[in-house]
C-alpha cells in the first residue's frame, strides 16, 4: 500500500484530533490569531450587509484573515473530496443505519445524506426545516453563545475558560435533545 492509498483511507480519530488541536498553536504563532470559525459569519455580515447595527460596525478588514481561513476550509473540502476521497462507501454504525432506514434514508454514499440535503428536497417541509431552519439556528446560536465548537470547545477549553465549558456542555445538551428526541419527528415529515 503506497502513501496516497493510506491517505485516501478514512483518518482515525487519534490522527485527526491532534491535527485539529495543532491548529490552535499554529494560528497563534503565525499571526496571534485565536482559533474560531463562527466569527467569519459575523465578518461576512459586517462586510456584505450594509446596516446601521452597531454589532456589525467594526473594522472587518482587520479580521479578514478569518475569511481567508474559511475560504481555505472550502478548498480543503474540494481537495479532500476530489483528490483524496475514500473509494469505499462511508461505514455507519449498524444501529444508526437501521434507525435511518425507517425514515427512508438508505443512501450512505456521501458525507452529506443526499436524501435529506438536496436542491429537490429544499422545497419540502422536511428539507426546509433541515437546511434553512437548521442553518439559521447554527448562525444565531453560535453568535449568541459567542463561539462554536472551534472557538469555545477547542480554543476556549484549551485556554481553560470556564464559560467555554458551560457553552460546550450546552452545545452537547442541545444536540442530544435534538438528535434523540426532536429529529425523529422532523425525519418523519
Amino acid at each position, binding site marked *: 500500500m503506497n502513501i496516497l492509498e493510506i491517505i485516501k483511507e*478514512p483518518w*482515525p*480519530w*487519534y490522527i*485527526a484530533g*491532534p491535527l*485539529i*488541536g*495543532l491548529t490552535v*498553536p499554529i494560528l497563534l*504563532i503565525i*499571526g496571534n490569531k*485565536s482559533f*474560531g*470559525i463562527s466569527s467569519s*459569519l*459575523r*465578518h461576512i455580515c459586517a462586510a456584505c450587509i450594509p446596516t446601521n447595527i452597531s454589532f456589525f460596525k467594526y473594522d472587518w478588514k482587520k479580521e479578514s*484573515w478569518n475569511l*481567508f*481561513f*474559511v*475560504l481555505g476550509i472550502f478548498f480543503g473540502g*474540494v*481537495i*479532500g*473530496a476530489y483528490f483524496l476521497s475514500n473509494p469505499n462507501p462511508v461505514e455507519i*454504525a449498524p*444501529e*444508526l443505519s437501521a434507525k435511518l432506514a425507517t425514515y427512508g434514508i438508505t443512501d*450512505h454514499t456521501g*458525507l*452529506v445524506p443526499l436524501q435529506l*440535503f438536496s436542491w429537490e428536497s429544499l422545497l419540502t417541509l422536511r428539507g426546509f426545516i433541515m437546511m*434553512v431552519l*437548521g*442553518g*439559521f*439556528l*447554527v*448562525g*444565531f*446560536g*453560535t453568535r449568541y453563545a*459567542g463561539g462554536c465548537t472551534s*472557538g*469555545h470547545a*477547542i*480554543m476556549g477549553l*484549551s*485556554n481553560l475558560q470556564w464559560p*467555554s465549558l458551560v*457553552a460546550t456542555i450546552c452545545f452537547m*445538551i*442541545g*444536540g442530544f*435533545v*435534538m438528535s*434523540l428526541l426532536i429529529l425523529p419527528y*422532523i425525519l418523519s415529515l
Partner: protein
Amino acid sequence: MSLENKNIDGEGINASQKKENAFANIKYLIVGIFFGIVFVKAEIISWFRIQEMFHFESFHMYGVIGCAVVVGLISVQLIKKFNIKTLDGEKIEIQPKTFNKGQIYGGLMFGFGWAITGACPGPLFAQIGTGATVIVVTLLSAIAGTWFYGLIKDKLPH
C-alpha cells in the same frame, strides 16, 4: 455602553493590533486548506458521524474533539509557560471569554442546529467544497441567523 456589552461585542475580534497585508493572509488560507482536508478525511463533516455521536453509537467524534482539546490545551500552556512569541516577535495574547447567559441559551440553540444540519460553521464551508452545493443555502441561512442576532441582541437576555 456597559463593560459587559463591550465584551460581547468584542468576541471574535482578535487582540492583535498589527495590520497585516493581503499577502500575509495567504498563510491562513493554507492553514484553512489543511484543516478542511482533515475535516473531510476524518469524516467530521459527515451528518452520519454527528448523529452517531449524539446517539452514543461511535467513539469517533468524542475521540477527535477530545484529542484536539488535549493538544490545544498542552500547546497553549506551553506557549504561556515559555512565553513563546509569534513569528513576528509579538507577544501572544488570547482574549479571555466572559460569562453571559448567551452561552447557555445560544449554546442550546446551536446544539439544536448542529444536530439538525450535522455541521458547525466550519464544516459548512467544507461540505460545500465537497460538492454539496445546496449547503450554500444552509450557510446563507446561518449568515442570516448571525445578522438577526446582531439586530435583536440588545433585547435578548445576556
